[in-house]
């Protein structure tokens, strides 16, 4: 979840209404951007990924203006034709296929706007832009470049320019190797033969997307007009990002102008600030929400969330801001009706059908086993099912290649699912050496092993005792008690060649001819490996 910071003073001036701290808290919470913190003038709110338009103070203020009744309904934006064109060369199709661009005139670059714009750019990169892979954004001084523009892919050595924050000309290879942004984002383009580049009429480089802009087109405090581009792997994400930025700038008084993007035979007017139209039926919305509202009432409510809805009998036509790409169909309209109505104002009901509770039989059985173990003074432990080869095999003096293994573990301590519970219990003893003896513990839990190509998860019971006098016999009587109480027949067989146990002090539990478990005294080498200092005996058996 992204956190957006802004100045309360700036925010309130954008809202155009004085709000108390409590009112501010309530308002941002109700538009789905709950407060993270508020200290003095500094406010931070959390933004969910469905609403990238709220990744800037301008967007949050716009939503609050509607919700607080300052300006309800759809906010419309005008965009005149700049007369500029941008040509997309087909060479970028394999690398970074999409671009959208806009000209923004008469921008007053106040400190607040610059801070917000930088934050918006960074947050869009991280969220919607998937760390620049899906979208990256460039902002330039429009007056330093000449239309028409061209977006193409070229050999990395063939283009040189001075990247931002550098003093010398570099080709695109050198940028990936030397520039901090090049190093950070090289992964995105490295595999391609040609790299994307955006140039003006005279071949002046604007940027090497998604890596870095050129120093020559840098935005300065004197900049009055901006050129903005978004490139990426998804047309929709690229266009949405551009439109969100344009709306924020327009809210600050700038004038947005469109650029004609020629992509093959397609001609795209960018940005497209026309509203999204969604049809919805008031009946369906009422049925889903459990409300009884007229279409007119719904239209009124939708105005508070920045939509303009036209009610006609039972049907609604909803016009929503162009950046609301989370609106897929009527269900999304229904949510906004519910939000505007207030979740906490809805009269709650209960589902209208009868049903009978039904436990999972294995859970019922496990609970009986727990009772038996507890009756014998054993304390239940809960251990992680994820572990590593050292604990599961090496320390136990065993080997195995039957583990369910992780591909991308963050640490070497969590690399596989455990194949048995015994090591977990020995680990519990190892952190409890100073606790009173005897210690008696158990776990009913799962293990996972590979059977052929498939992972098989199985429920097991294991128990253990550590004490100066702990022995084979302690486990024998526990195992026999469990088998008796659960009414499971069994016989015992000598467990031979199990390296985790003292030879001659381990047994196998056989049930209907199948080995279902074992018990015995842990080998002193294993005790050493776990750092245990007292004799220890364990048992473990399958429950299925």
């Amino acid at each position: 979840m992204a956190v957006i910071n802004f100045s309360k003073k700036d925010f309130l001036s954008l809202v155009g209404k004085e709000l108390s701290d409590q009112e501010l808290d309530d308002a941002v919470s109700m538009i789905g951007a709950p407060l993270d913190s508020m200290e003095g003038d500094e406010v931070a709110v959390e933004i969910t990924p469905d609403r990238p338009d709220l990744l800037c103070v301008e967007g949050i203020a716009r939503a609050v203006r509607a919700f607080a009744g300052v300006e309800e309904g759809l906010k419309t934006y005008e965009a005149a034709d700049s007369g500029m064109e941008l040509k997309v060369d087909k060479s970028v199709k394999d690398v970074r296929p999409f671009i959208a661009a806009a000209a923004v005139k008469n921008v007053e670059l106040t400190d607040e706007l610059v801070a917000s714009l930088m934050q918006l750019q960074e947050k869009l990169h991280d969220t919607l832009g998937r760390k620049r892979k899906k979208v990256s954004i460039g902002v330039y001084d429009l007056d330093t470049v000449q239309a028409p523009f061209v977006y193409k892919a070229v050999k990395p050595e063939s283009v040189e320019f001075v990247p931002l924050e550098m003093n010398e000309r570099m080709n695109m290879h050198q940028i990936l190797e030397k520039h901090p942004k090049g190093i950070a984002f090289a992964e995105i383009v490295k595999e391609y033969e040609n790299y994307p580049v955006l140039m003006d009429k005279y071949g002046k480089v604007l940027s090497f997307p998604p890596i870095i802009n050129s120093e020559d087109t840098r935005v300065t405090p004197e900049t009055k007009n901006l050129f903005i581009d978004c490139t990426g792997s998804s047309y929709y994400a690229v266009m949405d990002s551009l439109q969100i930025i344009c709306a924020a700038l327009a809210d600050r008084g700038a004038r947005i102008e469109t650029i004609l993007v020629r992509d093959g035979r397609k001609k795209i007017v960018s940005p497209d600030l026309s509203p999204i139209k969604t049809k919805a039926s008031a009946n369906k919305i009422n049925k889903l929400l459990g409300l009884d509202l007229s279409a007119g009432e719904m239209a009124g409510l939708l105005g508070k969330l920045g939509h303009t809805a036209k009610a006609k009998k039972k049907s609604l036509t909803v016009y929503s801001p162009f950046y609301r790409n989370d609106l897929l169909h009527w269900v999304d309209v229904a949510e906004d009706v519910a939000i505007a109505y207030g979740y906490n104002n809805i009269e709650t009901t209960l589902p209208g059908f009868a049903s009978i509770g039904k436990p999972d039989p294995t859970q019922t059985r496990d609970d009986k086993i727990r009772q038996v173990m507890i009756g014998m003074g054993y304390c239940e432990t809960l251990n992680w099912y994820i572990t590593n080869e050292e604990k599961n095999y090496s320390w136990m003096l065993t080997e195995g290649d039957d583990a369910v293994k992780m591909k991308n573990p963050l640490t070497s301590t969590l690399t596989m699912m455990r194949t048995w519970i015994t090591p977990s219990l020995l680990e519990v003893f190892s952190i409890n050496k100073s606790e009173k003896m005897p210690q008696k513990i158990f776990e009913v839990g799962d293990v996972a092993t590979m059977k052929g190509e498939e992972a098989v998860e199985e429920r097991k019971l294991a128990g253990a005792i550590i004490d100066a006098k702990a022995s084979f016999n302690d486990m024998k009587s526990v195992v026999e008690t469990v088998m008796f109480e659960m009414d499971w027949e069994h016989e015992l067989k000598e467990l031979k060649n199990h390296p985790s146990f003292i030879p001659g002090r381990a047994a196998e539990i056989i049930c209907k001819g199948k080995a279902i478990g074992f018990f015995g005294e842990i080998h002193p080498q294993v005790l050493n490996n776990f750092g245990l200092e007292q004799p220890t005996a364990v048992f473990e058996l399958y429950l299925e």
Partner: protein
Amino acid sequence: MALHQYERAVLKAAKNGAYDVSTVQAKTGLKKDAVLKAVQWLAEKKALRIKEEKKTEFKLEAEGRDFLENGFPETRLTKKAAEKNLAFTELSADEKRFGISWAKKLGWIIIMPTDSGKVIEATPEGKKAVKGEYAPMKLLRKVAEGRASEADQKELVGLSKRGNLVSFTEEVTVTFNLTPEGSKLAGEQGEMVQELNQLNKSQIVTGEWKKARLREYNIKAPSERAYPGKKHPLRQVIDRIRGIFLEMGFEEMKGNMVESSFWNFDALFQPQDHPARELADTFYLLKPDTMEIPDPELEKRVRETHEKGWKYQWKKEIAKQPVLRTHTTAVSARYLAETGSKKRKAPAKYFLIGKVYRNETVDFKHLAEFQQVDGIIVDENATFADLLGIIKEFYKKLGFEKIRFRPSYFPYTEPSLEIEVYYEERGEWMELGGAGIFRPEVCIPLWGKYPVLAWGLSLERPVMLSMGINDIRTFYRNDLSWLRDTKVGKEWI
């Protein structure tokens, strides 16, 4: 006044003229400790007054006995030297080791160099001294005859310093007098009856107990702490939540932890480039390295939904990647698909409490493996108002009377909300779960119908808050002192 049997024995002996411990011992057959205890207790009850006398007893030890019999080495040595000058070779071992140095110190001998080596010659003082009795010898004799007194102590201490000659023990002799109350109390004591600590079988069976008196215990004496076997605190919470679901008519689901991305993500309308699917958040598996998607029709429906809704090209290979499930909702998705294929019936209510995994750095706030609770209601006629209503009931059963909802976002629900409950003890609202209605993009491909109500919460965080634990890892560390000290009678969350 309730008296211990020892006390009564002492009083009885005192009535018969015994006023010191050894006499009482002789009369009662009690051990010294028992008599002393009883005297102490009776003194506290003001039944008698204690007089303590300290006496030091001296005892001859091995070396002392040897010297008493054979003389001190310095005396023996000087005596021999008085007769004739001695060569070193003529001395016994202890004469050599101790005799020479003591005799020299006393001025009894001198050592003279001669042509044939050193010789020992007695001085006139030495010759005179060995005629009388050596003072230390006198002391030893006194000790041996029991005549040593406090007055000799200082010299005896000095003597003891040269070896294992004498030892001292300080003896406290306790005598006592009965007070008037004590005499009265002694008079009240009837015939002694046998007093018992523990009944045995024969006393019970033969009726012998009728003649016996069962000792009264000090009921406040400390007893040893017992450590019962018990359920893990988290299990106790799980049991409670299971109970609530079952009471509310929910059926318990069951599902695997090793799951395909298809069920964990795709079936729940999470786009394939969703950040939650990144390697940094999800455990992907090396073994198994692929998992089949069971139903080609279902696969097609999910693919189309993704491509239409998220506008990208859906890839089957990505959906086949196995993961450790990141939420229990993966199991809900399977149950929903089984409802779609008529294996299960609708309407229905299901729940699951199970382990989920996140590829996170583990610290005091984050676990890589934890428990999640999921409840769903599969019903064509269900409403958002029903969802809010059932959630209210659920949390009321958990003990939360005050509850409120806040709009939120999850990729697979719409509307979505966060559940906040009011903790009376802490006096604040806390987030305790999320909920929503599964999107048509989830319901239609899996079930063919709509809607499904869903809510869930993770378990450890609220339990941690209500227990006042600061480190979330506590739950899986199984510190026995924590397990032993966490009370079964308390309800957490």
